[in-house]
């Protein structure tokens, strides 16, 4: 880090810091891939972290998903009604939720809740020398702390997105029924009828990238924190900010790639 920073002193500090951050995250990601396939595997810790990331985020994701579906339906209904296209409402809401809103909103919630949690936890372990203690005990703290948490976010965020999409559609069904009378089976058959493979598959694949980015950035910010207790807050904060930014960047790339293949 020090040597790199001295080599590029001709750049303004903010640009230099940006490149150093990108370099740090890239190396950290490289170390993840080098470690993840090496034995011993920490299955029980992955399960524990998956429980923390998945189960403990379920309440927040449920409420958000439900409100997302309900509000989208209530807001869209008057416009569609003006064109006499109310029957398109389930399909339109389903496509919006499954392709875009569900994955992005869920990922942003996880970047906030999970990302800040991981960032603060690892940073506090770093400043209280717990990570150093693991290192000097001859264990591999990177495998135990980082690999397990990144795998947990990688596996759980796609599942949370599927759950949020489902709850969002239920919210939408209730929204439709506030001013109308549509059966559950009819609503869902109309919603699913408008969905294609290209709506579902790319949206599902990108959630793995969201999960990976949220996990690796939160772990990086926590694991490399070195400014005492002030650094813990900073790590949690930047884990959320950079994680959220990455979600939007990945989404932009995913949309471009999906439209290219379509």
């Amino acid at each position: 880090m020090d040597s790199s920073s001295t080599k590029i002193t001709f750049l303004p500090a903010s640009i230099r810091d940006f490149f150093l951050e990108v370099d740090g995250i890239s190396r950290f990601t490289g170390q993840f891939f080098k470690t993840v396939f090496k034995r011993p595997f920490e299955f029980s810790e992955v399960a524990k972290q998956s429980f923390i990331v998945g189960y403990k985020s379920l309440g927040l994701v449920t409420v958000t998903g439900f409100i997302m579906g309900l509000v989208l339906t209530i807001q869209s209904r008057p416009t569609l009604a003006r064109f006499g296209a109310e029957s398109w409402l389930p399909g339109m809401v389903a496509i919006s939720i499954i392709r875009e809103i569900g994955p992005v909103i869920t990922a942003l919630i996880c970047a906030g809740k999970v990302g800040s949690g991981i960032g603060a936890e690892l940073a506090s372990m770093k400043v209280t020398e717990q990570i150093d203690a693991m290192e000097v005990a001859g264990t591999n703290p990177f495998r135990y702390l980082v690999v397990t948490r990144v795998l947990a976010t990688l596996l759980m965020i796609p599942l949370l997105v599927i759950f949020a999409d489902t709850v969002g559609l239920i919210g939408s069904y209730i929204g439709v029924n506030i001013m109308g009378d549509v059966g559950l089976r009819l609503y869902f058959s109309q919603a699913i009828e408008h969905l294609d493979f290209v709506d579902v598959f790319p949206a599902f694949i990108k959630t793995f990238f969201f999960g990976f980015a949220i996990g690796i950035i939160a772990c990086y910010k926590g694991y490399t924190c070195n400014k005492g207790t002030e650094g813990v807050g900073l790590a949690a904060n930047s884990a959320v900010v950079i994680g959220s930014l990455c979600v939007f960047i990945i989404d932009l790339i995913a949309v471009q790639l999906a439209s290219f293949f379509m």
Partner: protein
Amino acid sequence: METVVENMEAQNAAVGKKENDLIVLTEGLCKSFGDNHVLKGINLQIARGENVVVLGKSGSGKSVLIKCLVRLLSIDAGKVIVLGHDIPALGEEELNDVRKKIGFLFQSAALYDSMTVRENLEFPLREMKNQSKDEKEKQVIEDLKSVGLEEAIGLMPSELSGGMRKRIGLARTMILKPEIILYDEPTTGLDPITSKEISRLIISVQQELKTTSLIITHDIECAKITANRILVLKDGVFVAEGTFKELEKSEDKWVRSFFE
């Protein structure tokens, strides 16, 4: 107390006979943080069975020195040989194997605060595949008994007092039966009575496990109880070396000020 001092003198004599059996050897060890040159060519030799204390004021680089010995910090120049291994040249796997033979008690004890005392002690044993679960359990209880805290096995670190945390930290350090234990300010933040208890515990652990100890401290009472050789660190170099009694009568006013 007198028994402890007698033990130390006996050990001193034993150490003299084994001077060639070096556990730690550093030559010209330098470490800087930017323009701050913390260690300026440290030469340190510790023989098997010795209890060496490094005394120095806060910020003199004592903790940096022991962190360099286990490569928690990389060195800028010099040589670091621990247990016959050239520490800066080791690969990751080899370094981990050497680290398992080195115990390290952190200033804050560094207990894993999301784990119970039992889990804290079991953690270093997780990669010991040749030990059964029962054997690990037995070892955890034995180590807790030797620090007098077997009743704390189910507690979380947040439920422990400062002295208890240090004892548990020491039990965790002992669990892999290290050949050398590095103590980073073992009595900092403790009242005088608990400090004395911890210092005596260091001696009893050293005698029980037949380990070598390197103790970093600025607590003169701790140095008096534990050391059979004291090195005084000032401005990144050792400025004095000797037994407690020798240094107490040092002609150097700055060195003597530690003992007054």
